[in-house]
């Protein structure tokens, strides 16, 4: 099934709907065509509620699409069973969340180790090096609660790269940071992805963040579900 010279990520006719509390179905994602080449860095611009997170969750294999095709590195992710998607995610995807999503009971090092545990396996040296790379070499054994928000986001970046992913998904990664930390975090994410030859797909509604990317795409135009919703 694997094709050569194909993009890292290829999406066609992707749809996802959810049931609203009143029992009606709402289409959240309806993307007819999308692709991303290996090592590329792309920012998707979109406001809250535009389905960006759902789109990233579909790419990560956290959600299964109702219809459409997701091909990742030649493999048909959209046809995978849930355990297959879990394994795929553990080996191929790094995920950076707006709220960091670090485990509070784990130290920085343990959080990073956790990022590789379900995929290639724990590697303490690599985990330590990643934390040193993000400037937290002296915070290896600190708990998230002992770190500033900026430092917590750096741990999240290190964790996202821990499984040597082919694609890093970043969902409003600077949403909880002040301007200075936001700029630093974004620079770090982009540099770290380049160093690790990982593609980066970032979603944000922040014009300053989007302005730092050479390649940006308007998620409103990409996601026809938003346009359809607006029309109704």
């Amino acid at each position, binding site marked *: 099934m694997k094709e050569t010279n194909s993009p890292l990520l290829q999406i066609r006719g992707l749809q996802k709907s*959810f049931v609203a509390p009143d029992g009606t179905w709402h289409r*959240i994602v309806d993307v007819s065509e999308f692709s991303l080449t290996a090592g590329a860095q792309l920012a998707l611009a*979109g406001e*809250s*509620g*535009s*389905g*960006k*997170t*759902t789109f990233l*969750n579909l790419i*990560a294999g*956290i*959600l299964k699409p109702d219809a459409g095709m997701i091909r990742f590195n030649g493999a048909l992710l959209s046809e995978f069973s*849930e*355990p297959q998607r*879990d*394994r795929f*995610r*553990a*080996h191929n*995807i790094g*995920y950076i*969340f*707006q*709220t960091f*999503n*670090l*485990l*509070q*009971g*784990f130290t920085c090092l*343990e959080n990073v*180790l*956790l*990022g590789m*545990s*379900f*995929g290639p396996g*724990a590697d303490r040296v690599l985990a330590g090096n990643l934390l040193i790379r993000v400037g937290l070499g002296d915070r290896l054994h600190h708990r998230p609660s002992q770190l500033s928000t900026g430092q917590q986001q750096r741990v999240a970046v290190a*964790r996202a790269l821990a*499984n040597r992913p082919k694609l890093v998904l970043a*969902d409003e990664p600077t949403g909880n940071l002040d301007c200075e930390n936001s700029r630093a975090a974004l620079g770090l994410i982009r540099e770290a992805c380049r160093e690790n030859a990982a593609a980066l797909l970032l979603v944000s509604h922040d014009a300053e963040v989007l302005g730092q990317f050479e390649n940006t795409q308007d998620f409103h135009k990409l996601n026809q579900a938003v346009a359809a919703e607006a029309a109704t």
Partner: protein
Amino acid sequence: MNIFSIVFRSLRQHALSTAVTAASVALAGGLLLTVWVVKTQSQASFTGVNAGFDAVLGARGSKLQLVLNSVFHLEASPGNVARQDFLDIQNNPDVEFAVPLAVGDNFHGWRIVGTTPDLFQKSAYAPGKKFELRPGGNWFDPARRAAVVGSFVAEKMKLKVGDKFHPFHGLVFDEQKQHAETYIVVGVLKPSNTPADRVIWIPLEGVQRMSGHNPDADTEVSAVLVKLKAGNPLAGFQLDTFYNKQGNRLTFAWPIGRVIAELFDKIVWFDRVLTLVAWLVALVATSSILASIYNSMNERRRELAILRALGARRAIVFAVIVIEAATISAVGVIVGFGFYAGLILIVTQIIRSQTGVVLEPSAFNPVMLWEPAAFVLLGALAGIVPAIKAYRTDVAQNLTSQT
């Protein structure tokens, strides 16, 4: 980082609830172990106590009362045996030797038993074990007012060789009923861990002729301990038939162990109630594991969703919760052994002071293997309900709100 590391860190994060839940398991485990060990050990110990004899001959009445009175030195004597009856059984060709006992006096509540030196010199209270005196002591001279004191009485009453005392009439201490006779302690027994440790031994005639006792009965004895010859395996049956079925004046309690076993058979319901209570406590403790983990699931949904987002399969988060529950149980079981050690020590002391029988709490008992296994299994089972909740955790919903 493997699944056990994740479990360990999760338990560490919820240290307080882990400790409280494990403590409740420890209490339940310790209680169950204690009940079980006391039950099995006391049954084995009591049915094994026979003072080195095969049977007891006594007045017509309950065999159990006869054995309790003459072997365990508990209960009142069911009546007296005439001297001729003692001589008859002593001279029976199937009897190796017979030792008379006379009861009816005490010293501050500790039973005084009259006997002959044969008890110490001919009999072995356990295979290969004869009564021994502590250094500096002697066996009593049957012609003198002398006493050999059991080790436990000596310890409690601080009696030593050379001390003098006045016996008191009856089996219950009443300071108004002091006998005029003065006895001197000539020896103190080394601990035998038998009921003999709780007795003050004096010559048979001493009890028989104590001032205030019925002078018409001064040749009678309270019971006769009987050691049968090994050569005739039917001797016990024959004497049982002779005294219990053909005769109607005396009771021949044989074999001693079976009489006590019948007592345990009668109180088996009590064992069952105790065991049931212990298991109920165990059930409550393991239910507390379920409640504790289940209640924490709401706040842990995000953690579980993060694990799933990092690639953990549903089966892994399910296993994390089950192993966590089993681990809490295992920790509780380990601490429970400490609780058991303390509790069994107290119970052993109480049984020893009341009966003279010493349990061996450190001796291996199968419960020490299956109880931990059962508790860990129960803990794991208790973890299944919250684990199902963890299994069903909606990753996308719990990571962040949909946008």
